[in-house]
Structure formats: structure tokens, C-alpha cells
């Protein structure tokens, strides 16, 4: 794909073709990220001062945390990833974005769906299924919007100049299929008029959560990282055979994980998931090796730029996936089940892995599509440190606190309140991390917002100039 850079006129044209839909996708995503992190802090406040929202039904922990989680996944991660996918597909195809107005409509529809869903949760209309809390109207909007964006992505892929597929293609194309299939299946079964009886509901929700938070995000994140890493390293992706092997094992084994070991379901379900999780260490290891071999010794430098974000994301992928899969081991799951540990792993996946990769990608892509540098590059560099330190400070206390809480819960001589109190201390430390992440996401929002305003002002100027100038000179002469 380095060839694409040689023909710079064509590259500029491709970048410009993505401008409008990407601005809509990234702008909304940055806004939802800020709101999601802020709501997460509001939720955590319930553990600093339990009666803070005693008279405010909208911000009970159950409302605020669910809305915050969904804002990170549906508000930020998926639309931002879709924007990056559109751009990468156009670049790899060496063709302008196909049907650019369709993803623009999709982006606006998507953000409307997220707004409706979030309001729905805060007003008490959550469905009650983890990660599928958005009420039916919002879910329908999200699915329709996703299809609109995916159609444009698939068309761009179809118009590619070179028939050969690059590894990023496999990952990102599968990611589109993954979301479309799992989101439609889960919502059709759970939110239709006649949901299945009993725990079958919970099994479907677990299948959905695993296939989005683990497999889906891995496909998006690694697909994006494998596009950028060779560019930053200045050499091709190492070992394409390895990558193919990792891709196949990830989708084959990863898709079967996700049923918790303690689940009150027939034993074959958690047993299958535990075995799948064991096998899923293979792709996680293989993907980490590919990234390592691509970067190591290439003179790749970690800094505040997009490269730093993406490297942090890849490292977070390896670490969070490792912990996620270890949780499925029956021996360890008994220690950390029902504690803050699992919550910490999920937040690491959402913010540390996919979040960092997407923020880095947005900083890299936005100046290209807008054909001008970032308005506040210093803030962008600062936001790397805010995000990196903030995420570690947020997640690691949760993991340690979770283990501490789990060990105390296992020992019935320790009163329950003492087990909770042990985790509370760590939880309070983690809130400082959330504050840093909030500052980091504000830096991102500021950059995207200023760029959007500049662009809109530019458009307005062109329009005004077009109205004024030719009329005076042209009309008189003719």
C-alpha cells in the first residue's frame, strides 16, 4: 500500500472524498466519548458518596453506568471505527469513497440512535440485557445506520484497483459482518414480542457481548493497527502466513468464548467457552508476535503522535485479551467472578485497546481528509499522555481491587461488607484515572470541533464569495 503514496494527486482526491462522512462519524464519536467518560465518572461518584443521587432517578448507578458503557461502545468505538474503515478501504482500493452521501446519512442516523438510546436508559427504558440496553427504536435506528455505512464500505472494497486483499481487509470486512449479524440476532431474539424463556436470554446476551467486546473489537482494532503499523515502521507487515493463521484462529475460537464459568446453565455451555478461551490464546499470541516483528528494530519511535496511540492500543490488546481469556479458566474465574475485575478488563478493552487505536487513527486521518494540520497539535500530543496515564490509573486499581475483593468473597468468614470495602478504596483511586481520560477526550473533541467549525466557515465563505463576486463582474459584462 506504500505505492498509493507515490501518486499524491490521486491520494488527495481519495482523502477528500472521505471528508464529509468522516467528519460526521468522528465528530459525533468524539462528543459521545466525552459524554461517556463523564457519565462513567458520575456513576463512580455513587461509590464516593452513596446518597449523592438519592433524589435523582436519572443518575442512579444502574442508569449512569449502563449509559456510559453503551456510549463508549456504540457512541464512540463503533462509529469511529466505521469512519476509519471507510478511509482505509478507500486508500487500499486506490479509489475514492463509493456513495459518499450514504455513509453521511448513516452517520447522522447512527448518532440519532445513540441519543435516543442514551435518553432511553436514563429515563428507565433500558432493556435490562448487558450491552444491549438500548430500547427497540434506538436499536432499529443503529442497525439501519450501520447497514448504510457498511454498504458504502463494501462498495468501496468492490471498486478496488488491485484485486489482491491486504490483511487489514480480512479483519475489517469480517468486523462489519460480525456486528451486523450479532446485533441483529441478539435484538431480534431479545427485543421481539416473544423472547425465549429463562436463561436462554442470558446466553444470547453473553454470546453478543463476547462477539462484540472481544472478537468484534479485536477485528476492528487489529485491522486498523495492521494498516498503520507498517507505515510507522516503514516496512511491510511481518509474516503474512502468521497473520492469516491468527485471523482464522481468532474468528474460529474467539466466537465461542463468553459464557461465564459460574453461569446457571447446562454445564456444556461454560465448558465449551472455557475450552474456546484456552484455544483463543493462540491468535492473541500470534497477533502480538506479528506486531512485535513488524515494529522491533525498525527505528519506530513512541511519542505523543498517532504512532504512540496505536502502539499503546496494540499492547493493551495483548494484555486485556490475556486477562479476558484467563477469566474463563474455571480455577481463576472462581476468584474474580462478580468482582470489579471483569469490569476493569472491559474498560481496558474499550478505552485502552480500541479507544487508543481509534483516537490515534483519527489524529492521523483527520488532517489528511481535511487537507490541513490539526488546529491544536500540542493538545493532541498532551492527550496521549492524559489517555495513557489515565487509562492505566483507571484500570489497574480495578483489577487489583477486584482480585482483593474476590479473595475476600471466597472466604465466608470475611463479612460481605468488608469484602466490598476492600474494593472501595481501589475504586476511589480509579476515579482519578477517569478524570485524566476525560481531559484527554476533551482535547480530542476540541481538535475535531475546531476543524469542523473551520471547515463550515470555509464552506460559508465559498458560498458567499460565489454569490457576490461573479454577479458583479460577470453580469455587467454580458
Amino acid at each position, binding site marked *: 500500500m506504500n505505492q498509493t503514496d507515490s501518486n499524491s494527486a490521486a491520494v488527495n482526491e481519495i482523502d477528500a472524498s472521505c471528508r464529509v462522512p468522516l467528519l460526521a462519524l468522528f465528530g459525533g464519536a468524539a462528543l459521545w466519548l466525552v459524554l461517556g467518560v463523564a457519565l462513567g465518572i458520575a456513576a463512580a461518584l455513587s461509590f464516593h458518596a452513596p446518597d449523592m443521587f438519592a433524589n435523582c432517578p436519572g443518575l442512579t448507578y444502574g442508569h449512569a453506568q449502563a449509559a456510559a458503557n453503551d456510549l463508549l461502545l456504540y457512541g464512540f468505538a463503533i462509529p469511529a471505527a466505521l469512519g476509519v474503515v471507510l478511509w482505509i478501504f478507500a486508500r487500499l482500493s486506490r479509489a475514492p469513497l463509493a456513495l459518499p452521501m450514504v455513509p453521511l446519512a448513516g452517520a447522522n442516523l447512527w448518532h440519532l440512535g445513540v441519543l435516543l438510546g442514551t435518553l432511553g436508559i436514563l429515563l428507565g427504558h433500558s432493556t435490562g440485557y448487558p450491552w444491549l440496553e438500548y430500547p427497540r427504536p434506538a436499536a432499529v435506528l443503529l442497525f439501519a445506520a450501520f447497514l448504510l455505512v457498511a454498504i458504502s464500505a463494501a462498495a468501496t472494497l468492490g471498486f478496488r484497483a488491485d484485486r489482491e486483499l491486504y490483511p487489514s481487509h480480512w479483519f475489517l470486512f469480517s468486523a462489519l459482518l460480525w456486528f451486523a449479524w450479532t446485533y441483529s440476532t441478539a435484538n431480534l431474539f431479545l427485543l421481539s414480542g416473544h*423472547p*425465549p424463556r429463562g*436463561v436462554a436470554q442470558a446466553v444470547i446476551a453473553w454470546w453478543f457481548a463476547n462477539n462484540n467486546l472481544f472478537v468484534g473489537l479485536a477485528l476492528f482494532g487489529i485491522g486498523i493497527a495492521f494498516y498503520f503499523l507498517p507505515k510507522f515502521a516503514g516496512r511491510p507487515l511481518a509474516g503474512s502466513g502468521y497473520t492469516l493463521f491468527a485471523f482464522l484462529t481468532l474468528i474460529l475460537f474467539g466466537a465461542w468464548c463468553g459464557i461465564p464459568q459460574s453461569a446457571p446453565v447446562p454445564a456444556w455451555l461454560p465448558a465449551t467457552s472455557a475450552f474456546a478461551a484456552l484455544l483463543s490464546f493462540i491468535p492473541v499470541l500470534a497477533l502480538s508476535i506479528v506486531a512485535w516483528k513488524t515494529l522491533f528494530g525498525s527505528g519506530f519511535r513512541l511519542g505523543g503522535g498517532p504512532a504512540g496511540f496505536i502502539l499503546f492500543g496494540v499492547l493493551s490488546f495483548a494484555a486485556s485479551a490475556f486477562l479476558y481469556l484467563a477469566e474463563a479458566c474455571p480455577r481463576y474465574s472462581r476468584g474474580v467472578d462478580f468482582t470489579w475485575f471483569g469490569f476493569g478488563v472491559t474498560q481496558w478493552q474499550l478505552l485502552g485497546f480500541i479507544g487508543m487505536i481509534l483516537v490515534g487513527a483519527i489524529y492521523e486521518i483527520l488532517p489528511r481528509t481535511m487537507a490541513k494540520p490539526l488546529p491544536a497539535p500540542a493538545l493532541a500530543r498532551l492527550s496521549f499522555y492524559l489517555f495513557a496515564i489515565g487509562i492505566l490509573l483507571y484500570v489497574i486499581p480495578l483489577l487489583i481491587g477486584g482480585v482483593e475483593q474476590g479473595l475476600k468473597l471466597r472466604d465466608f468468614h470475611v463479612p460481605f461488607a468488608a469484602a466490598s470495602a476492600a474494593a472501595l478504596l481501589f475504586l476511589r483511586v480509579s476515579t482519578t484515572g477517569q478524570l485524566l481520560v476525560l481531559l484527554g477526550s476533551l482535547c480530542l473533541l476540541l481538535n475535531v470541533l475546531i476543524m469542523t467549525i473551520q471547515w463550515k466557515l470555509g464552506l460559508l465563505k465559498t458560498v458567499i464569495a460565489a454569490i457576490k463576486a461573479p454577479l458583479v463582474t460577470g453580469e455587467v459584462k454580458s
Partner: protein
Amino acid sequence: MKTGFSVFLVAFVALGASWFGLVYAPLHQLGIEKQTAILQSGDTWPPQRTGDATLGLDVYREYGCAACHTRQVRQTGVANQLELISLGQHQAADFKDFLKSLMVVPELNSFSNTLCGPLAQWDGRLPVTLYFGPDDTVIAALVEKLKPLGIKTDARVVATGADISRGWGLRQSVAADYLYDQPVELGSLRAGPDLTAIGAREPDLNWQLQHLYAPRSVVADSSMPAFRFLFEVRPISGRPAPEALTLKAEFAPPAGMEVVPTPEARRLAVYLLSLKTGAPLYEAPYTPATAAK
């Protein structure tokens, strides 16, 4: 992986297989579940919820209670327990000697330490646990020797594990328990205690309402947020309302005011009361207390 179609095919097969295994198969195994028979009883499990309890499940969903509370009990295993209920006309000291003399019986021989050891410090108080462990031949052998002497014992099957010891239930949760839940909210975090059997642990409606209004008024070290918006604080007109909460002085409203639960609060509390200990089932057996003979 040269063509788009081959990528699509591979991804389709991979996700399709997991869809078949983790969505389609559970739908067919669990999605058509019916009530099951309770062990050694003509009744079926689970009972259908009625009235406010059904509506209360919706309040539980609405405020996201499952974000902090699980509704699933884990169990590590099952044990056989033999309790001594009554000695009849015999003395405790005689019983100890008699038990020692029984150790020549081949089935009991290898258990002499487990059986006689703990009893050495026994002061004669009843009931006392004679045996607690995985073996059931020892229990059969003991009962056979003790019954003719008029010594009453109670042999029980009990579930073991930290959740059970904490009193969160008498057995592990199983799929059948959630038949009437819509939606099924198992929960994944225990920021607060498990609620599987909260209705059995705290069977008083007023306790539940007081706990929702001011958690620390009934559980001193609780970290639960108060749900005061589920209650109405209003001036007393004439006589105090019969449903007004009786609160400790430091949590009570100013003089002349009373705290009255809204219908939503009442439904939630009634739902919580409907959460009882699971009945013994084929897949999760235990001997209920009432069946002791």
C-alpha cells in the same frame, strides 16, 4: 484469501458455527423449558409470580439494580451431613464410649478420627454434627447401629461453598429458577450482596422499604445508594398514614412530616420478598429443613 468472497465465506462459517452452538442450541435446550418437579414433593418449580411481584421485576430492571447485585448462587459441591437429634434414654458420655466401640465395624473403621475426634470436646448439647463429608456409606452404617437404640439422627444432603455459607441460598442457582423472569438479569458484579434469596433472608416488607429509603438505617455499613426518589415526604394531614415508614430518629423526616412509599417502591419491595430460596431439584439436590425426621 485472495478474493472478497473467500473472506466472507470463512467469516460466515466461523460466526455461523458459534451462532449454531451458542444461540440456536441453547434456544432449543433452554428456550422451551417448562416447570420441573421438586424432589420428594408433588409441587413444581418455579412458582409463578403474581401481582406486585411481577410489576416489581420491571422496577428492578428500570433502575438497573442488576448493575450491583447478582441473582445467582454458586456452589462448590455437595456433602452428606449426619446430625444427632436426640439420645433417647442414653447419656452423652455413654454415647461417646459406644461410638468408640463401634469403630470395629469395617465401614466405620477408617473414619474413627473424623467421627470420634470432634466429639471428644462435646459437652452433650444437641443437635451435634456427627459426620460432614462426601461419604454416604458411613452414614448408612451409623444409622443402622444407632436406630435400634432409640437414638434419633438426621441425615441430610447439603450444598457447600462460600455463597451457601454466607446464607445467600441453600443450593446453587440453576436454569430452571429463571423461567418466569422477563428480562432475565443475572448480574455480573457483587457491589452489593446476592439477592437470590433476599425474600427469605429479610422477609419483612417494612425492612425492605426502610432499606430502600435509607440503607444505613438498617444495615450500618451498607454502601448502597439511597433510593429516596421512590418515596414521598409529605406533611402529616390529621393522622399519620398507615403505610408511612417508621424510621430511626437520625433518618426520620422533620417533625410533622411522614415518608410514604410510592407504588413503585412497594412493587420493588414485594418483588424482593418474592425471591425465595430455591426448592431442591434433580439437578440441584439438598434436604430441606422441613423434611427432617
